């Protein structure tokens, strides 16, 4: 399959370095499994996969912006806001509340994207500002509190919280996202243009690629998937809160980068994001086994992010880093 060959050629380019994420994942699973044999039991692994789903959906969204050489810092606020929207409207709108939440995500992403390309604001500023707006919006509409779903409202959440012959539905949702993103990246113009813009924007522009349009689309996708992550999180926790997805921005970006997507853009795939997300999850579980305070875990993710960025790019080729 040609998708594989292009991935292989990318791997060949950077040699063994590109296999490091998969190797790391296998090693981590073995280490944690050796320390705690119950970790390797199917139920534990399914549980792990389920716990990874939200992180993976968030990460696959933000990967669109990273692929272009940008970043979307608004994702955790967007996810929290989406959970609040669902909690507030599910009683009235039913399944429509999910559509509303994701629609708000798409609109927020559109605004970030337009601010980025039309006003020529760096993406980290545009999305940082958008994140602030979304966080405040979530605080205001929720009256600064967490909203627990009522019994009747929980019925609408079974597509998220339920399971299909033993497999949690969130895993199915994550798989659908995986396939959707894979097709988008490998089989559409958008995917190719994203890679081209990330790897060499001036050449893509001079070749007639509508760069601005692709960028706006990437931010719409990023925020929509963040909203979906928030919807899924709300379903699993049966509540919505303006801080529900707080603490997820760092692990999501770390997952993308740990998987081997270059923070400078142009190189990346959903498979790398999947491996990166699993690494982050296994590290999280491993730390729990080791008794690391849950609030101290971001110390590890921060360190992992720095290390991964340092390892994934050949720094000597970059004269100036801003």
């Amino acid at each position, binding site marked *: 399959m040609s998708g594989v060959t292009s991935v292989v050629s990318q791997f060949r*380019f950077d040699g063994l370095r590109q296999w490091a994420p998969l190797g790391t994942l296998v090693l981590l699973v073995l280490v944690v499994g050796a320390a705690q044999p119950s970790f390797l039991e199917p139920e534990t692994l399914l549980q792990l996969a389920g716990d990874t789903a939200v992180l993976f959906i968030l990460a696959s969204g933000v990967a669109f912006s990273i692929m272009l050489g940008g970043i979307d810092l608004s994702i955790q606020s967007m996810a929290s806001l989406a959970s609040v929207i669902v909690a507030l409207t599910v009683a009235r709108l039913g399944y429509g509340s999910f559509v509303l939440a994701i629609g708000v995500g798409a609109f927020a992403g559109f605004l970030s994207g337009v601010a980025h390309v039309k006003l020529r604001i760096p993406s980290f500023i545009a999305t940082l500002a958008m994140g602030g707006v979304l966080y405040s919006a979530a605080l205001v509409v929720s009256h600064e509190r967490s909203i627990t779903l009522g019994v009747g409202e929980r019925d609408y959440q079974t597509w998220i919280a339920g399971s299909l012959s033993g497999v949690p539905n969130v895993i199915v949702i994550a798989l659908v996202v995986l396939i959707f993103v894979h097709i988008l990246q490998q089989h559409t113009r958008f995917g190719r243009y994203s890679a081209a813009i990330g790897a060499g924007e001036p050449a*893509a522009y001079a070749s*007639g690629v509508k760069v601005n349009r692709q960028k706006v689309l990437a931010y719409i996708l990023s925020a929509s998937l963040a909203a979906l992550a928030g919807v899924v999180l709300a379903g699993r926790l049966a509540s919505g809160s303006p801080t529900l997805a707080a603490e997820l921005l760092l692990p999501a970006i770390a997952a993308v980068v740990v998987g081997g997507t270059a923070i400078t853009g142009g190189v990346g795939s959903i498979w790398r994001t999947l491996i990166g997300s699993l690494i982050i999850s296994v590290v999280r579980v491993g730390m729990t086994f080791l008794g690391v305070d849950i609030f101290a875990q971001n110390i590890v993710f921060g360190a992992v992010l720095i290390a991964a960025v340092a390892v994934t790019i050949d720094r000597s080729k970059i004269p100036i880093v801003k």
Partner: protein
Amino acid sequence: MNAPVAQAALALVKVDKRFPGVHALKDVSIDVRRGEVIGLIGENGAGKSTLMKILSGVYQPDRGDILIGGKRSRLANAADAARQGIGMVFQEQSLFPNLTVGENLYLGAEAQFIRFGLMDWSALYDAARRQLDKVSLAIDPRMRADELDFASRQMVELAKALTLEEHAKGDLVILLDEPTSVLERAEIDILFARVRALKSRASFIFVSHRLDEVLELSDRIYVMKDGAVVAELETANAEVQTLHRLMVGRSLQSEYYRESLQASFRNEVVAEAVGLGLADKYRDVDFKLHAGEILGVAGVIGSGREELTRTLAGLAPHDRGRLLVRGREVRLATPAEAVDCGLGYVPRERRVEGLVLFLSVAANITLAALTELTRYGFVDRREERRLAREWVERLQVRTPGIDALCLNLSGGNQQKVVLAKWLTAKAKILILDHPTRGLDVGAKEEVYELARAVTKQGVAIILTSDTLDETIGLSHNVLVMRDGAITHRAGASPGGKPRQVDLIKHMV
């Protein structure tokens, strides 16, 4: 060599430098004696800039030695080169416009003015004034650099290079890289007078493609061609014609540009400009471009031809007059619009605007044609790969395969990929912007052959070139521009090619 290298203030001995696909410097040996002005000439791509970058510590030679005052030395970076007495006056001026003249002069060397941890500004400006006196520039060093005119800035750069004599250990060698390209004649006279007066303090390497100026200022001249020094002459024994012949390396051979393949073009007009203009760049440009025609645009820097090229590429939309492409009036606000009109831009910055280096050959070849390759929203990857293979074969792109990254191809093969991209997109008009820049002779000839082949298929070409020789050799018709306007039009049919001198007089 006329003098022992050991006595030279600076010498390069058998310096060799390669880049992927380009042998930039081939065993280059040059020596600069104390108090001497060396002229260094050559066409674009001859290796002058690589040589300058090695001397200023930006590049390291692969082989060979750099001798400073007879001692083998290593120039690790620009600061290191400066410490060892090599100063630079750049073509594109390197002063920071938002800093004062004094701050610019001592940028990076402020430590000497620090007293008790604070800057002693009056000491810095006193020292700056002394530096400006050396070049007889009577300005206040507290002025901001952007308040100065070009010529004065050039003098400030010279003064900055001269600050090195206070700390450099040995002799001072100053590289003058195209310092006259933005100056008026009177300003050039002043610059040259200063350089001559400063010969007691320093040696100079003067790089220029204005041969008359090189003859005027230099004591000795090195001629470079295709990465090698092809001649070393005393100025007294040189004249413009000799230098030119040495630089170009051949009396004009018509077959070099495949003139026998130059077919007459068709009657069909594919593009037309009527009174086309862009504020402050060019004006009143009229031309008709026919299917199968190569239209060369000649002119010096500032003639407006570069901007005209970029207008057609959709990178600098015109604001006056009319542009018709295949009968339809257009204003090309973005490259995407130009591509939709059937235009394809082959840029001079091949590695930046021409190719996405970190994508495969196949992805680059189809980048401008993905819309045609899309069925029901999905890119037909089988067809994509078939097309890529076909073009790689037809243009004889030397690559390990269509999945190889363009990064790893040589310059000539990269250029073929750029051309393949536009041929895949079925471009009707190609804009060749310095298409052979940085290519070696063999690759150049392949590009010429390709240009002939596509025009035979009815593709029209607008050409701006590094050398007038190439423009004349390839084109059916030549437009000469000066100061933003067309000053001359010449037919260039095979056997009836205009002479360079006849065009040059309309350029300057």
